């Protein structure tokens, strides 16, 4: 059965308190972020149904929102998701080369996950780091001024993080 941890349930209550009485649907986006974090990095249908129940709304209200926003994953992803920006300002500073480098280094195409389940490569549109291009989002943070060497060290960092935490 799907159930948030005690900590997340407390967090949900805190989120509810931000809105006036009866406007709890507003909590949907923040609660989906929590759910994605807690239930494996993506939103499976039972997870979305659970969120609907928690908020007292119909499942379709959750599905239509989850599929609209690009940060919610509708299928499983690797442990580390490289989201590389490819919009104009990043392109001017060589994001195409960075994307190609990651592809060859990890042996995957855009949208794929490495067989060991560690890395997923996604391309995204402008993340608001144009002055620090090329860049990618990795988890909560941005990795900026990317070069092939920097990509190598990020991959190493992820591998050793994963080895320590397994």
């Amino acid at each position, binding site marked *: 059965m799907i159930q948030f941890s005690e900590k997340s349930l407390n967090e949900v209550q805190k989120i509810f308190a*931000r*809105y*006036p009485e009866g*406007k709890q*649907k*507003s*909590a*949907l*986006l*923040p609660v*989906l*972020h929590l759910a994605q974090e807690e239930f494996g990095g993506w939103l499976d249908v039972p997870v979305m149904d659970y969120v609907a129940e928690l*908020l007292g*709304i119909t499942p379709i*209200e959750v599905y*239509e*929102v989850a599929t*609209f*926003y*690009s*940060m*919610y994953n509708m299928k499983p992803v690797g442990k580390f998701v490289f989201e590389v920006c*490819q*919009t*104009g*300002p990043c*392109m*001017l*500073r060589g994001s195409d080369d960075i994307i190609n480098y990651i592809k060859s280094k990890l042996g995957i195409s855009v949208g794929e996950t490495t067989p060991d389940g560690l890395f997923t490569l996604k391309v*995204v*549109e*402008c*993340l*608001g*780091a*144009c*002055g*620090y*291009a090329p860049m990618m*989002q990795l*988890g*909560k*943070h941005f990795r900026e001024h990317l070069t092939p060497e920097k990509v190598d060290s990020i991959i190493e960092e992820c591998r050793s993080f994963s080895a320590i935490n397994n």
Partner: protein
Amino acid sequence: MSTKLLLDKANIEGIRFYKAYRENGGYAAVEKAFKMTPTEIVEEVKKSGLRGRGGAGFPTGMKWSFLAKPEGVPRYLVCNADESEPGTFKDRYLMEFLPHLLIEGLIISSFALGSNRTYIYIRGEYAWIPDILEHAIEEAKQNGWLGKNILGTGFDCEIYVQRGAGAYICGEETALIESLEGKRGNPRIKPPFPAIKGLWESPTVVNNVETLAAIVPIFNIGGEEYAKIGVGKSTGTKLISACGNINKPGVYEIDMTISVEEFVYSDEYCGGIPNGKRLKACIPGGSSVPILPANLLFKTAKGETRLMNYESLSDGGFATGSMMGSGGFIVLDEDQCIVRHTLTLARFYHHESCGQCSPCREGTGWMKRVLYNLEYGKGKLSDIDLLWDIQRRIEGNTICPLGDAAAWPVAAAIRHFRDEFEWHVLNPEESQVRNFGLAHYADAREVMV
């Protein structure tokens, strides 16, 4: 000499935290404003001439004065921190390094508008910033600037941070409100405007981060003094986020009297183009505004020096001018391909179209596919006219401005760089191995001497 009103304290150690912020004059503007009535505050903002810094440039004081005030109905202020316009990263800088400046501006603005619950809607990708903002809010609360009965005025206010989840469209104020209500970011049909029916059907004002931060210096120095900075209807200072092919990308505060040329070449700002390359083109106000070739960037079509302000950047209309927009300043050097660059922008708008209106939903994808063919040597000359036709049929035919924002970059690229598009068609193989280059879009600096 440049006037700094927003970033003047950015380099003070610990300014991100309450102690240093307060010791350096922080929250003095709240003290001043709370001695005034809400109506007087709105008048002061009107006097300052402050215009919305998100892109539209609408006078802030006027926007505030439109807010409906029916008895017994709550009113809301929402801070638009959904910064997503390619080339724009100024609000991120403010929130990351000067969170108390935004919170201080929000307190004054909430008081003026009567908003007891104020929301900061921040784009989901800025995932580390809500912690910074929430910490600043907590500090402000502990020191009596938020919560119940602030400064004994009887005014209660709480500020909450809400994260989006990846959608450019939520920067449009009615889409933002929908999203804040827990829905898809589909813009609403206006009227009713948010000032009458906004968040949860209540009167709502949505303002950009930089606009709300600018409220602080307005009350520190007074609206009239603020209006003396700058030129004409471009009062005060503006943050410009500069990126692309320049030596010093970053966020700069300018008073709106400096020339575009100075901004590009001065070491105080962009520091020129790297590797001795020449300037080819520039998008001065975020990806939606028209791109200008170098020869129209530094001088207007009338031969006047072009300045970094609302009026001068739009001098000549779309035929020979552009817009101030959000202040996202994107520079392209001589090695850049206009077709490829336009393709990335078309792809962006197609990705971000909410799909509500057919001209935008279908047109953005169509433009992307045609541009893809042109870029990859599979285009026809008639495709250029087709592109022109598609963009013309999107513009003005959609509920929200995303349609226009998608149409303008394509239109401007064809308007000014048509021969580069033609070259791609006529030289399909060559265009795959080299770029068109500078051709006759001479670097304006070289033309002048």
